[in-house]
């Protein structure tokens, strides 16, 4: 057999594959962005403009989509005629509160779980992670009953606690991985120098701080985007943005512009946060099973 110095893969078949993948990618990008794009553009249209559509099969008139004069009226309405300021505040407090509670308690637990060994450790660990995986809808009814008897339904505190049911196990699970990567020798060295145990813990915190920061953001993201808990536990006094947006959908006379504006307000902050913690997203969304 003749030996080849360079393996040349530039056959017609691979060329065709490259062409195909390029076209596929282009289509996929359009399909991914289009709904978000339509949402944002529609939030600047008035009611009549939002309903404008070319006739079926009339491809030439597709440009009618851009035939509108931008208006900020929907955004102004949301904050003047509707109490969206309050809803925004509720969302921030509930998501932020549960993220902080989860990460503070979670990092304490994660640190100690990473340093100590005990008999039932694996079982405790599995229990923690299984609470994260449990379907929200399955536990919603009993949780609602308990929260009602404690008078927590419709309060921000109740919502924070409800979000903690999925954020706390998540924080413990992920942050344990971070603490596992910090050698115990560092704490020991600190203690040899006269640091107490809590001081030694504080000394290693800077090593895991970037990770902890990213997971505060991720916890906020999960809580912010939640709908079921907010709709049931938060019903009444603690309406968050997704629930408020959903309630704008009425059987008749749907105000699409307003809904799209509310959707944009709900979505954009999370997209920005997602960009900030881009590096940790894979780890976070796969519960630490896959690292980038």
């Amino acid at each position: 057999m003749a030996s080849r110095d360079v393996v040349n893969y530039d056959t017609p078949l691979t060329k065709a594959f490259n062409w195909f993948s390029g076209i596929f990618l282009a289509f996929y990008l359009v399909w991914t962005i289009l709904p978000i794009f339509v949402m944002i553009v529609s939030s600047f249209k008035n009611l009549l403009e939002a309903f404008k559509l070319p006739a079926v099969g009339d491809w030439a008139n597709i440009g009618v989509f851009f035939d509108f004069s931008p208006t900020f009226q929907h955004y102004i309405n949301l904050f003047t005629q509707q109490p969206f300021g309050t809803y925004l505040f509720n969302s921030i407090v509930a998501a932020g509160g549960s993220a902080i509670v989860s990460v503070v308690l979670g990092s304490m637990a994660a640190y100690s779980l990473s340093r100590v060994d005990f008999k039932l450790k694996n079982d405790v660990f599995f229990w923690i992670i299984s609470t994260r995986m449990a379907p929200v809808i399955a536990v919603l009814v009993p949780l609602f009953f308990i929260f009602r008897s404690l008078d927590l339904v419709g309060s921000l505190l109740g919502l924070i606690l409800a979000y903690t049911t999925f954020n706390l196990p998540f924080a413990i699970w992920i942050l344990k991985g971070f603490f596992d990567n910090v050698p115990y020798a560092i704490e020991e060295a600190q203690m040899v120098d006269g640091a107490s145990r809590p001081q030694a813990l504080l000394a290693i915190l800077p090593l895991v701080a970037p990770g902890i920061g990213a997971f505060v953001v991720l916890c906020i993201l999960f809580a912010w985007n939640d709908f079921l808990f907010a709709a049931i536990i938060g019903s009444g006094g603690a309406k968050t943005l997704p629930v408020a947006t959903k309630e704008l959908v009425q059987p008749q006379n749907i105000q699409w512009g307003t809904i799209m504006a509310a959707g944009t307000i709900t979505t954009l902050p999370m997209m920005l946060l997602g960009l900030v913690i881009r590096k940790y997203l894979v780890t976070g969304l796969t519960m630490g099973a896959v690292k980038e």
Partner: protein
Amino acid sequence: MTKDKTPSIDLFRVRQILDNVESKPRSSVSSEGLKLNPLPSKAYYYWLMAPAIALLAAITIYPFIQMVIMSLQDVQIGSSTWNNFANFTKLWGDKKFWAGWKLLAYYSFWCLLLQITIGVFLAIILNNSRWEKVLVTTLLMPMMMAPVIAGMVWYFLYNGTFGWYHWLFQSLGILGVKSILADVKTAMWGIIIVDTWQWTPLITIITLAGLKRVPRDQLEANMVDGASPLRNFTSVTLPNLYPVLLIAIMLRFMDNFRFIDSAMVLTAGGPADSTKILPIYLFDVSFRFTALGRAAAIGFIMLIVTIILGKALVRIFDRQQPAAHQ
């Protein structure tokens, strides 16, 4: 570790001691010799984890017990009576319950098939491409969206009178006048498309992370042996991707149990129960029919299934961890 038969004994000892220091907190060499610090006591760690464990127990175990109790009772406001497992035995004859499982299986199967196929293909295209970072970031955008909001935007796009996607489907001759969500035959596909739109990128980024881990030397060895790119993919890349894909599949499957937000907005189970997957049925039983005992029974069964799946998932995680360090 060094398996050499004749190592310098001293060096070997030093390594062993160092290893002990690094891996086992208890063997703390320094405090034994110097008595500067108290020995690491377990109690300290237990106190540190106590608040989290207590809080988690309060908001998960207590509701779980409450759920088990409710599932065995005929729950009425005010008074509840025990009813001899009637909530469970009645489920046996509950057609909508079984239909819920079947629809959930159908829904999950197509969601997973589409997402895995498209997601893996995208990852292969994007891997090491020139604009990988920018493109992946763009693809991630749908995942940051609240599923309810995504559902509402798509509801708008699907709308039979002013929806752009409906116009597109009609113009391409795929659909008639009826919106995709209004027809019993197509409604399920309406929600499958939205789930695929939102979550395919997750499969893509998981696969991308897996692709980076495919050993180069194996690919090169295979190429030297004259394998084509396709052969390279099927006999080296794919086997290496397998564990990562398994995790992706499990995660997505469990998410199909967990998230019904977008489907609730799009169809809420209709038309004619054609999209009433089990979680949506459970939502109806809980909050529309307020048959709370039955709801607790269904919830209990779903929870058990999730725990079994979770156990399998954690086992895959554990197998995955050592591989991650190679």
